[in-house]
């Protein structure tokens, strides 16, 4: 039966779309480093991380606790960090978010932003310290522009992910 004649009521979106879209958007976010943006500084916000945080906070039920590992691994391939860096840090973020979800009584927009910002700061600082702990500790101020940019960009990314999510579950 042609799709256009089908009733819109009770129609189910394809399972593939529901399952694949969230990890796919995160992977695309990680691949943003392939754009010809060449900098002397770590300045580009970690798009993969922003996307995964937005998805995790919008759809807490979708993600298993271990999802940080494979997604982080994909991010590692494109980010230039030593392999395993994001896989470890994102796993920790997922475990902490799971715990927060279980403890939290209510959640609002500002709380989401605060949680995302904390996670961004944790991952960026952690990533820099993983590269070289001893000589990078006194140089953490290097990350301030990137952290600010990422934190300010998060609400926008969350909005974009939210609309993608709306399309994902819409029939």
């Amino acid at each position, binding site marked *: 039966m042609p799709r256009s004649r089908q009733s819109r009521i009770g129609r189910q979106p394809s399972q593939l779309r529901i399952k694949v879209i969230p990890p796919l958007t995160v992977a695309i976010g990680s691949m943003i*480093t392939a754009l010809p943006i060449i900098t002397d*500084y770590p300045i580009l916000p970690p798009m993969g991380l922003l996307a995964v945080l937005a998805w995790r906070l919008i759809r807490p039920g979708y993600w298993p606790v271990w999802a940080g*590992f494979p997604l982080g691994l994909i991010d590692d391939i494109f*980010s230039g960090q030593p392999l395993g860096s994001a896989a*470890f840090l994102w796993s920790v973020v997922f475990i902490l978010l799971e715990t927060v979800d279980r403890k939290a009584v209510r959640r609002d927009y500002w709380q989401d932003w605060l949680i995302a910002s904390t996670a961004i700061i944790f991952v960026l600082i952690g990533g*820099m310290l993983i*590269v070289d702990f001893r000589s990078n500790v006194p*140089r953490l101020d290097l990350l301030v522009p990137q952290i600010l940019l990422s934190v300010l960009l998060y609400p926008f990314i969350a909005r974009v992910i939210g609309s993608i999510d709306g399309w994902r579950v819409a029939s």
Partner: protein
Amino acid sequence: MAPPNNRRPGFSKRAQYSIFASYLLGILGAVLGLLLLLISFVDPRGFSALRTAGAEVMAPISKSLSEIGGATGSAGDEIVAYFNAASKNAAMQRELEKNRSEILEARALREENERLKRLLKLDEEVPDSIAMARLISSTASSSRRIATLGVGSSSGLEPGQPVRSPEGLVGRILETGPTTARVLLVSDGNNVTPVQRARDSLPAFATGRGDGTVDIQPINIGSNPFKAGDLMITSGSGGLYSPGIPVAVVIRKTETGAIGRVLANPAKVSHAIVQPIFQAETMRQIEKNPVPDGELETGE
């Protein structure tokens, strides 16, 4: 948004176990990540195939986009330049507050600039390049400073080869794929470049600081003879870089050495030139015109 309230396990043992198992899997992921990290520290080249594959897959996108960027007035570069300008401005303001004597720097820089231009003229006589290509992307979101070059092993690139631009040394090849190569930039924290002062060949090491500057440490520890405006060039020791490639200009002194700004800003480098490894090239020339054994011995 309220979290879904069916996530509290209550008294059901089964629900509690399943939560415990999910946590266990999450922790397993973290531990695996740590293991991978350990492996990548023990053997930094270990996962290069994976990263190279990633770069190769993305190469068509990077290359075509960087071509478009070049054609339309490099919009990406301009955005980056804008961000760089803001952070550089802030950094400069801090420096000014700290140190008023930096006003003198401008004059010194101008003199060094002239010297640099003279040097470049000298340098243009020995181009001997393997390949010339664009930097097509970089690790802009990581604190590592690695860029991707638009040519690879099919053009004769090998790990270790120096990459330079007309302005100065850019870095060296770290990993190669068929059509892409990853370049460890001079300003990466893991990159140590043997340098010397252009004026009097004072030997030193330049270690990257991850923000477009290098930490310059003299080999004779104890003395700190650097002045703002000193030009540092490659010394040729270590055998990777041919001597005389401009690397950095000293912008301020520190307790044990100096901080230098890297001359070849990868964000502005339009084309990078890949050169053969200096020592290997010398060896090839020696093989071509054999020198008596005695002369080789004195070279060491």
